[in-house]
């Protein structure tokens, strides 16, 4: 299945992916209205290593998702390879944050968990981070499945 | 003031027709004249003409110069020039029939000449080259002389008027040729000038052409590097020079010439066998400036044959018919049916594919 992959050699560390993610999942149609004056809680996060190399990290939609197995509310599930979160069921216990080995599940600022759902549940059509990356450093492609 | 021919470029639409006997039988001009009648509307009365091969068997060793003179003084001047290079074998009027449709005629002469050997030696050129140079010199000089035909055992006959009238005017029924070509002209940019009518000739090459080539200036500017002077600024003129350059000067075959001026598309070349691919690639690489684009159907007459060729997109009509030893070529099938009412084998050659007809070896 198609997943989001990062090409760190092209990541500029501009953090636009974070803002595009936050906007795409804000449910609003205007970025200024959605993000101005607010702290953003993007589902993709730019990291920087000791050599100054930057790259964005988001849910890997792993084969054996420990977040799904650990969710005490049954809010996380895997459908057609995509790990989704049912926000109506999530009570904000953050067990998923505690178990995700990639740090890809995060608290959304209001107490519940959120994670990358490949922009399948918003109006974006395709992952906003990929669309908005100015340097092709985030791609949405099929690289096969884990063994 | 409307500019004269040669002062501006003149594109024109046209009708062409040709007939040839592969057995070398000589036929008078009746048939070819009639063939132009059904294509009357393809001309506008501003030019018609014919070329005939094999008409001067008794003078076949000599270059037959057909010349228009505006006046006597031009004629005298021109003859003086000719005498510097040639022996004048015969100098005569071309007989015409006065008809109301043809007016404003110039002085029309036929001069059989033979190059002087001393001149050839002095200039270190062959006699054909001498003829070309002298004819170009006369035609480039706007003093009122214009050589419109200069081959051996052949001649062009042309005038301002509809082709069928021009044929009657020149009494072509009195000439016998194994090969005839004819042309009716529809120029859009000229008051009509006798010299501008087709065929356009150089040595024994004659060209009748229907079309308006878009590559004109690319072709002209290239060919002029090699001593040709495109004074008339017509397609026919430049195509004639290209034919002369490729066939006589470069020594290409007719097929090879066709592969230059109506070169196969690169995509077509890609699909050919290796040897052909190499040949066609070579010809396109070496002579790119002689590719002729835009619509044309031309009939090239030469000593002993005809070649018909369409542009590679076949943007102009041209059909070919064959019956016994005869081959007919015309813009429209109607013209062929006039010449050969019972003909069965008529086809339309593909764009860029030359139709070459040769008279049997030794038949004329």
């Amino acid at each position: 299945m198609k997943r989001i992959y990062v090409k760190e050699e092209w990541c500029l560390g501009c953090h636009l992916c974070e803002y595009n993610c936050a906007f795409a999942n804000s449910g609003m149609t205007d970025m200024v209205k959605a993000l101005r004056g607010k702290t953003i809680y993007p589902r993709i996060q730019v990291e920087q290593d000791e050599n100054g190399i930057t790259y964005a990290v988001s849910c890997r939609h792993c084969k054996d998702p420990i977040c799904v197995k650990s969710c005490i509310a049954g809010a996380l599930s895997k459908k057609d390879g995509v790990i989704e979160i049912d926000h109506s069921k999530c009570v904000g216990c953050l067990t998923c944050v505690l178990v995700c080995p990639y740090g890809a599940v995060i608290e959304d600022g209001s107490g519940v968990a959120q994670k990358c759902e490949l922009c399948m549940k918003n109006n974006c059509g395709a992952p906003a981070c990929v669309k908005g990356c100015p340097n092709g450093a985030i791609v949405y492609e099929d690289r096969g499945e884990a063994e | 003031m409307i500019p004269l021919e040669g002062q501006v470029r003149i594109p024109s639409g046209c009708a062409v027709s040709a007939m040839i006997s592969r057995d070398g039988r000589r036929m008078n001009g009746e048939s070819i004249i009639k063939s132009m009648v059904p294509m009357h509307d393809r001309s506008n009365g501003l030019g018609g003409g014919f070329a005939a091969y094999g008409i001067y068997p008794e003078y076949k060793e000599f270059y037959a110069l057909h010349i228009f003179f505006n006046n006597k003084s031009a004629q005298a001047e021109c003859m003086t020039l000719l005498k510097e290079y040639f022996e004048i074998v015969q100098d005569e009027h071309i007989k015409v029939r006065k008809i109301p449709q043809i007016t404003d005629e110039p002085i029309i002469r036929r001069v059989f000449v033979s190059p002087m050997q001393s001149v050839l030696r002095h200039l270190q050129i062959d006699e054909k080259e001498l003829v070309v140079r002298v004819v170009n010199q006369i035609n480039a000089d706007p003093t009122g002389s214009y050589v419109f035909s200069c081959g051996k055992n052949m001649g062009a006959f042309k005038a301002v008027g509809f082709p069928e009238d021009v044929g009657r005017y020149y009494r072509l029924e009195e000439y016998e040729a194994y090969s005839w070509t004819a042309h009716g002209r529809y120029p859009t940019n000229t008051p009509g000038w006798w010299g501008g009518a087709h065929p356009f000739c150089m040595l024994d090459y004659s060209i009748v052409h229907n079309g308006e080539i878009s590559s004109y200036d690319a072709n002209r500017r290239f060919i002029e590097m090699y001593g040709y002077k495109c004074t008339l600024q017509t397609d026919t003129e430049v195509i004639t020079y290209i034919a002369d350059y490729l066939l006589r000067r470069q020594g290409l075959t007719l097929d090879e010439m066709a592969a230059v001026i109506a070169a196969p598309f690169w995509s077509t070349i890609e699909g050919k066998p290796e040897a052909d691919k190499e040949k066609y690639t070579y010809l396109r690489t070496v002579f790119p400036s002689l590719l002729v684009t835009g619509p044309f159907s031309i009939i090239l007459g030469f000593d002993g044959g005809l070649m018909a060729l369409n542009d590679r997109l076949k943007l102009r009509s041209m059909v070919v018919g064959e019956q016994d030893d005869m081959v007919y070529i015309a813009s429209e099938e109607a013209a062929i049916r006039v010449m050969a009412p019972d003909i069965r084998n008529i086809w339309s050659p593909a764009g860029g594919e030359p139709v070459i007809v040769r008279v049997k070896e030794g038949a004329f």
Partner: protein
Amino acid sequence: MKKYVIIGNGVAAAGCIEGIRSVDPEGSITVISAEQHPVYCRPLISYYLEQKTDLQRMHYRAESFYADHGAEVLYGRTATEINADTKQIVLDNGDSIAYDALCCCTGSSPFVPPMQGLDTVDNKFSFMTIDDTLALEQAVTPESRVLIIGAGLIGLKCAEGLHSRVKSITVCDLAPRVLSSILDDKCAAMMQKHLEKNGIDFILGTSAKEFCGSHAVMQNGTEVDFDVLVLAVGVRANTAIVKNAGGNVNRGIVVDDACRTSLADIYAAGDCTEYHDISSDTVKVMALMPNAYMQGHTAGVNMAGGEAAFDNAIPMNSIGFFGFHCHTAGSQPEGCEMYEETDENHIRRLFVKDDKLTGFMLLGHMHRTGIYTALIRNQTPLSSVDFARLKIEPQLAAMGNAYRDKVLKGAV
């Protein structure tokens, strides 16, 4: 066609069903459910009281879960006996059910130590099940004074759940600190302070000596008047049925990494078991929901003839009260070193021994803590990562290029 029987209908049972079906789409599955409810999320009962969820949303799986997985549930039934020789179980109504593979997901029960006068208390409740919760909900009014015995996870979640519905809440525990099983003194103190700020009272370091109606007297002499009593002292694994069948049982049913008991074709999973904690290299009862699911799933796969192991279990807890969270995982074995970073609202304590992260306690803002958890679970040598950076913040950047490439450039 294989016959699978599962005793219990909690999350371990759900995991077991999904585990079986990941291998065997055919065999029959029978689930013995003492409760009248389809599998629900037990820890959500406090959120129910808090009205952050409702009975419908508490379902662990979709309504069609059992149908989709071809499992038959016998609601309101309990298994009373296992006959390992004949491979049959007997139900409370006397029915026998044969099995080819059996999984015990019997869970745990509240443990109530003997306390004098407890029988004089009318309004006393456990806090384990939906039924407990609904009963408790009925009993409380805005004027209720609630006394909760036990300042562990259950007691405190109960306190949080009831907080806005009652007049006052007092929590008492024999231990000197809250959440004594997962937090050390300093962390517990910060959490306690936060709870107190939100109106929860504590009586710690002492236990109830005596009850008399709605009056309790502590060992240290403190007296408390209450309207509702919640008993949340602790839980005990339900092991009897396996023990009676001749299975090996300590504090929990003994299982191996494949979740097999000592009896052939009998598996066990969830709160009723005791198993290996790799962070401390000890065997213990870790009544944790994520582990219950993973055990159940492991058991299911193995029951159906597949191969699975749950061999990296660690204790871990994510718990929060009134918006203040705490994440803990692993253990603090003797001789471990502790790295600490702290300020007024936040504590980060990392425990390291033998070049490995063995455990952590984090209070305050929880961000990407799973990266730490994975270090414990994978027993990653800290010399192979940039631990100095990790101490500041959990990040993949510190995990080395090879790991990063593996995780970010290919499917995992």
